[in-house]
């Protein structure tokens, strides 16, 4: 048992932090968000640091790093409020493609590794909410041995900046069956894409498929999708830790500077206790973020339980830290010009991808055993 980072991991953290410090200040971030949240160029800059290929196997031109490195990068991206689609493009997509036939991997993974392609998971549907097994989109054999897909996917991250989507579509079975869900790669040119900005200064899109050609990744793709989503959740939790840690720092600075009644507001005990409660939520969140990243390799039932336990903790932490850090700023905290409110919005929006707190509480509840604990 050891929670120390290696020297290489610390260097990775430094590299991301330096890039944020030099190239991704709040002014730039704010301007990007105001302009509609397009960040493909930012994603390209991250690729120059080698980050796009972080999780891509070395054989396909990537670094072949694991969950801890991903966690380190995500934490720093969170701290820097970086709104590029890093987790969807660089972490979730390679995890999905691990289930693909070798030729398809060889066609796409090198392009993912150098960011010449942005590939994202398009799994949510108007009626699916957070259930991965609820897939109404259909796939059937098309001309020439391929498949064609029909259906609608919503809130696809950076959807109108992506080059291709990985789409779960039903080959067989009822609408909620885990069996019969195929995974397909659909190029953007074959789909109708309607993009829009999101509250956290980024972009998403609805993707409409109408007999759209798709390349089969796996005919029974549910397990692969679930595992990739868990990679995404662990990444998101690490990002949340970075966001919370930095929002706490910003708030501490503010409280030590802002004066009311002739003294810094940091001197008031009601506010000091709030800071202690925020620190508690940040550290519980960080502890569980470690837990999620370090349990990604466990067998399915254990992994899913750990991921949902983590998301319940992070959901509570994000909500509390976001709301309370905003509150401690007073009026300035609820303005657009102040960076704090953008941390708050990102923390809020994060909850609605891959399942909110109540969804994951339901998962924890359903998966409870007689014993509990980190090693249960």
């Amino acid at each position, binding site marked *: 048992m050891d929670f*120390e980072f290696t020297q290489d991991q610390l260097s990775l953290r430094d590299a991301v932090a330096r890039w944020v410090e030099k190239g991704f200040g709040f002014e730039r971030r704010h301007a990007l968000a105001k302009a509609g949240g397009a960040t493909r160029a930012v994603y390209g800059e991250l690729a120059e640091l080698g980050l796009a290929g972080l999780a891509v196997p070395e054989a396909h031109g990537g670094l072949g790093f694991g969950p801890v490195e991903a966690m380190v990068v995500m934490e720093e991206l969170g701290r820097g409020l970086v709104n590029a689609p890093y987790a969807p493009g660089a972490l979730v997509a390679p995890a999905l493609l691990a289930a693909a036939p070798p030729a398809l991997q060889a066609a796409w993974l090198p392009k993912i590794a150098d960011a010449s392609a942005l590939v994202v998971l398009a799994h949510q549907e108007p009626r699916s909410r957070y259930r991965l097994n609820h897939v109404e989109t259909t796939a059937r054999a098309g001309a020439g041995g391929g498949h064609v897909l029909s259906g609608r996917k919503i809130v696809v991250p950076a959807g109108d900046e992506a080059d291709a989507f990985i789409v779960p579509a039903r080959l067989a079975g009822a609408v909620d069956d885990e069996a019969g869900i195929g995974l397909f790669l659909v190029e953007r040119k074959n789909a109708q894409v309607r993009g829009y900005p999101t509250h956290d200064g980024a972009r998403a899109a609805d993707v409409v498929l109408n007999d759209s050609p798709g390349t089969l990744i796996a005919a029974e793709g549910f397990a692969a999708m679930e595992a990739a989503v868990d990679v995404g959740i662990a990444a998101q939790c690490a990002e949340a830790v970075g966001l919370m840690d930095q929002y706490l720092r910003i708030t501490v600075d503010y409280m030590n500077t802002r004066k009311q009644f002739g003294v810094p507001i940091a001197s008031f005990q009601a506010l*000091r206790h709030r800071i202690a409660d925020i620190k508690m939520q940040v550290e*519980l969140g960080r502890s569980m973020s470690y*837990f999620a990243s370090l349990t990604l390799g466990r067998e399915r039932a254990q992994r899913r339980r750990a991921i949902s336990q983590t998301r319940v903790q992070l959901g509570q932490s994000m909500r509390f830290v976001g709301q309370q850090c905003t509150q401690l700023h007073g009026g300035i905290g609820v303005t657009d010009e102040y960076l704090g409110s953008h941390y708050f919005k990102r923390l809020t929006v994060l909850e609605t991808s891959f399942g909110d707190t109540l969804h994951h509480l339901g998962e924890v*509840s359903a998966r409870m055993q*007689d014993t509990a604990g*980190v090693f249960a």
Partner: protein
Amino acid sequence: MDLNFTAEELEFRSGIRQWVAENLPKDISDKVHQAQRLSRDDLQRWAKILGKKGWLGWGWPQAFGGPGWSAVQKHLFEEECALAGAPRVVPFGPVMVAPVIMAFGSPEQHKRFLPGIASGEVWWSQGYSEPGAGSDLAGLKTRAERRGDKYIVNGQKTWTTLGQYGEWIFCLVRTSTEGKPQTGISFLLIDMKSPGITVRPIIMLDGEHEVNEVFFDNVEVPAENLIGEENKGWTYAKHLLSHERTNIADVNRAKRELERLKRIAKAEGLWDDQRFRDQIALLEVDVVALEMMVLRVLSAEKSGKNSLDVAGLLKIRGSEIQQRYTELMMLAGGPATRAYVHEAMEAGWQGDHVGAAHSASLASHYFNYRKTTIYGGSNEVQRNIVAQTVLGS
């Protein structure tokens, strides 16, 4: 980064598990698992079994006859004991006063006091709080006046846990009123059989005699019972408080009690009640998060960097969780928990239970556990400390 214990650590754990299975008396673990009342004899019997093995001072270095375990090994030992249903070791001797005696006592004091603590023969109590000195402990007034080779002690201590069994008591006493309140405090070991000491019970809200008031009326204490230097007691006491960092979270016991909560919920037909079950699930998340936080502290200690200053957080969270599981157990017990039958909490009681037998102690424990956010530095004081660290002002 690696979540798993090393092969050596796992081997260590299975050794402990086996020893505990072979040596923890079943009548005692049954009482613990069923939350029945533990007697002085139960507590001391287990202490002496540990003492005979050399593990009552499980945190002690080898130089003082302890096992010299690492922070991780200590944690694993505590976990195995807790999960097997061992009673909590009464900490005042082996966990609290012994490290102070080791660090600041003389060789003569080592020889005189440590063996009785290590074996579990001598019952120690703690004399810190006073009626006028709770959170503001440095405001203590119990006076120790030096007269020749003796101190004359006058004053009153309170909240002395299990002081009714105490043979010795370690006290913070005022030896000077000069300067800041913290600078005039000394650390004194007092034989509780000394003339002038009166112990009076305080009955708590659950009807139990767990704590006491201790009065000192011209009690003569040999000067050789002073630890270290006069007026340095506050420093020694702080050493004591900083000594136990992870134990205070008591996450291992929380894991055991979470299991018990699930058993009670099942017996009460609540396991399939989604509203209730979700409350257990939330608590389970809290327990796992606390365990991860404890493991992070252990890892920091193991690496020698010790950079993780979250002791205050561990105390706050651990105590809140303790209160929450007693609360959920009481709610699970339902209307039967309203009955207060003092004898029904004894093992082997033959009377008619109101509702299921497990209901007898649930409300009492809920009431009793309100103490956890108050003692050991109230959670509000802990928040002050955490805020000081975070704000740096």
